[in-house]
C-alpha cells in the first residue's frame, strides 16, 4: 500500500521534507501547494507531484493520507487544522505554531479528527545528539553541570523577510534556538528559569544568547545565530562531574571535496555525511508509527512545551528579566 503525501510549502523545509520522502519505499509525494502556486513548480516536477491550487484544496483532496505542513510559522495553525479537518495525518514543521493558543488548536483539531500529529523537532533524529543522550542517560558523564550549545547559519532575513518579523516567525529564538531548547528538554527534562538577549532585528542578521537553569541540574548557555557567514555549524558541550563530551559539526565532517574546475572557481563541497539524513529518518519513523498505530516520536504536546520554553526566552529578551518556566498544558 502506498502512502500519499501532500506538502504545503516549497521553501527550505518543504523541499527538504518532500525530497526526504522520495527515498522512502511505499511513499509518494502526490501534491504540492504553495502561495503563489507557481513557487512550487520546480519541486512538484522533481517529485512527480501535481500542483494544487491552494493549501485549502490540498487539505481537502481525496487521495492524500498525510499532509506535511512546511509553510511559514504563522500559517502552521491554519494549514494543520485544515489538514486535520480534511482527515489527513499531519506532520508539522517546527515550531508547532507561533503561539501556544495556535499550537493547542492544532492539537485539538487533530484529536478531534482522529488523525496523528507529529512535529518536526528534527534534532532528535540527528545521530550526534542521540549519541549524547545515550551517554548522558548511561551516567558516563556523571551529574550534568554545564551545557553549552551553539547553532548558526547564514543570514536568512534578506531573502525571506518573514524570518525577522517577530510576529510571524518569533525570529531566531523560535526558529533556531528552539532546536536546542527542545534538545535540552529531551535530554534533561523541564528547566526552572530562563534569561535571554536578542539583537534588534535589523540588517538581515539575527543573534541571541540564553542562559537556562535547572534547579537540580545543569546551567545551560545557548547561542543562536543567523549571522554565521561561513555557513551552517552546530556545537555542543556537556560537562558532568565525571566527564565532558564536545561536538563541532565542522570538525565532524568525514568528507570534504575541493574541486579546481568548478564554474565559479574553486569550490568546497561538504558532505553528505550520512547515508540517511535525519529528515528522512524522522519521516520514515512517522510513517511507520502511523502504520503501526503508535504515538509519534515527538507529539504535539511535546512540541507545544518546547515552543513554550522558546516563548519564555523570547519574553525574557523583551523584558530584560529572568522568566520562570512552567510548562504549558
Amino acid at each position, binding site marked *: 500500500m502506498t502512502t500519499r503525501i501532500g506538502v504545503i510549502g516549497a521553501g527550505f523545509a518543504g523541499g527538504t521534507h518532500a525530497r526526504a520522502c522520495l527515498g522512502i519505499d511505499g511513499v509518494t509525494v502526490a501534491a504540492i501547494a504553495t502561495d503563489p502556486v507557481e513557487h512550487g513548480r520546480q519541486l512538484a516536477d522533481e517529485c512527480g507531484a501535481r500542483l494544487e491550487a491552494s493549501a485549502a484544496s490540498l487539505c481537502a483532496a481525496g487521495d492524500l493520507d498525510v499532509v506535511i505542513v512546511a509553510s511559514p510559522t504563522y500559517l502552521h495553525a491554519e494549514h494543520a487544522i485544515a489538514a486535520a479537518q480534511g482527515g489527513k495525518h499531519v506532520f508539522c514543521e517546527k515550531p508547532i505554531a507561533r503561539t501556544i493558543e495556535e499550537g493547542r488548536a492544532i492539537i485539538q483539531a487533530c484529536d478531534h479528527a482522529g488523525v496523528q500529529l507529529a512535529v518536526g523537532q528534527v534534532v532528535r533524529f540527528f545521530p550526534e545528539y542521540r549519541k549524547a543522550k545515550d551517554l548522558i542517560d548511561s551516567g558516563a558523564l556523571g551529574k550534568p553541570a*554545564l551545557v553549552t550549545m*551553539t547553532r548558526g547559519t547564514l543570514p536568512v532575513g534578506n531573502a525571506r523577510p518573514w524570518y525577522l518579523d517577530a510576529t510571524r516567525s518569533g525570529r531566531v529564538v523560535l526558529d533556531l534556538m528552539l532546536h536546542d531548547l527542545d534538545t535540552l528538554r529531551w535530554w534533561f527534562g523541564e528547566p526552572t528559569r530562563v534569561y535571554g538577549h536578542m539583537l534588534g532585528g535589523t*540588517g538581515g542578521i539575527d543573534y541571541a544568547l540564553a542562559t537556562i537553569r535547572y534547579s537540580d541540574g545543569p546551567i545551560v548557555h545557548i*547561542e543562536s545565530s543567523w549571522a554565521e557567514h561561513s555557513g551552517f555549524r552546530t556545537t555542543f*558541550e556537556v560537562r558532568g562531574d565525571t566527564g*565532558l563530551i564536545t561536538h563541532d559539526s565542522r570538525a565532524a565532517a568525514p568528507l570534504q571535496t575541493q574541486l579546481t574546475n568548478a564554474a565559479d572557481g574553486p569550490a568546497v563541497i561538504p558532505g553528505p555525511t550520512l547515508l540517511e539524513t535525519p529528515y528522512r529518518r524522522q519521516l520514515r519513523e512517522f510513517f511507520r508509527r502511523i502504520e503501526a498505530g503508535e504515538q509519534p516520536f515527538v507529539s504535539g504536546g511535546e512540541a507545544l512545551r518546547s515552543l513554550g520554553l522558546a516563548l519564555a526566552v523570547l519574553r525574557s529578551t523583551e523584558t*530584560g*528579566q529572568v522568566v520562570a518556566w512552567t510548562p504549558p498544558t
Partner: protein
Amino acid sequence: MDAADMTQRRLRMGLVSYAHVHAPALLRTLATLPQIELTGLYDEDPDRGDAAARTHGTAFHRELATLLDRSEAIVIASTNVDHRRYTDAAAVAGVHVLSEKPLATTLEDARSMVETCRAAGVQLGTAFPVRSSAAALSLKGLIDRGALGTVLAIRGTNPGRFPGSWFGDRAKAGGGAVMDHTVHVADLLRWLLTDEVVRVHAEIGSLLWDLDVEDCGILTLDLAKGAFASIDCSWSRPKTYPTWGGLTLHVVGERGTVDVDVFRQALVHYDDRAGETRLAGWGEDLNARLVGDFADAVLAGRPVPISGDDGLRALEVVIAAYRSAEQLGPVAIADLD
C-alpha cells in the same frame, strides 16, 4: 626595541609573593626582559620563596621592605586577598604596582588601591595579558577601523580546570570561578568596544569539584552603547582535558563575525611515556608583552596601558555577578555599593 632604547636605563622591578600559579612565569619574564633589572623576590613562605629565587637566579628577600627599598616597581603575584596590603605597602614606599587579576576581592579594596596609588603618585596596573595577544590586537584593529560595522554581541569564554591550590579557598581567593575567570573577558569587552558594562546577569553553581566556592558560571552583560555579551567563566575543563583551558570570543558585528581563540596555537602531543595527550602551546609569550609594556610606560613617565581602574571595572562585573546569582535577576552596575 631599537638601538636608542638599548641605551636607556632599566627599571628596577621585583616580584612580591610566589603564591599565584602565574608567579613562575612572571618571575621568568622579569628576569629576561631587557628593560628590567630584577631586584628579587619576596614571599610569605620563606622556603618556597628561597627555592624559587634560586631557580631563577635572583635574590630572595625575607622582608618586604628590603625588596621595596631596591625596587621602582613590583609585580604582585599573591593570593587575591593580599593584593591590597601589598599595594598599600608599595604605595607608601613610592613603588609602582602591577597586580595580578582580579585587582582585589571587594570593591572597597579595589577602590582603596586605586585611590591610595593615585594619592601616592605611583602607577597601578592590572595583569590582563590577553589584551597583548596578536589575535586580540588584530580584532581591536578591525573594530576600531569599522571593518565589522557596529559590534552587536560577543560570546566570550574563559573556561579552565580547577586550578587547585588556594583558588578554591574563599578566604584567600574571594570566590571561585567567577572571581578567577570573569575578569579577562570582561576587560577585553571594555577594551575592544571602548565601552562599559552597565548590567550583569549570572547563573552560578558549585557543581563539579566539590568546592565551597562556585565552579560554574555563565554571565550575560549589557554594555552602555547597546551591545550584549556573555562570559563562561567555569572551571569546566576535566582533569583529562589536554590543556588548562582557553579563552575564546565570538564577535558579531553588523558586517561580519570574528572568532578569536587566543591559545589555539598549540601542538597536540600524544605522550605514551606520560600516558596522556596534551597541548604544547607555541603562541607568543603574553606575559612578556604585559610586563614589558608596563615597564616601558613607567620608564617613560606615561600612564600604564592597563590601569588599576581597568581592574576595578572588571571587578565590578564580578561583584555584580555574585549579587545577580543571589537575587535571581540582572543587577545594574550603578546599583553596586
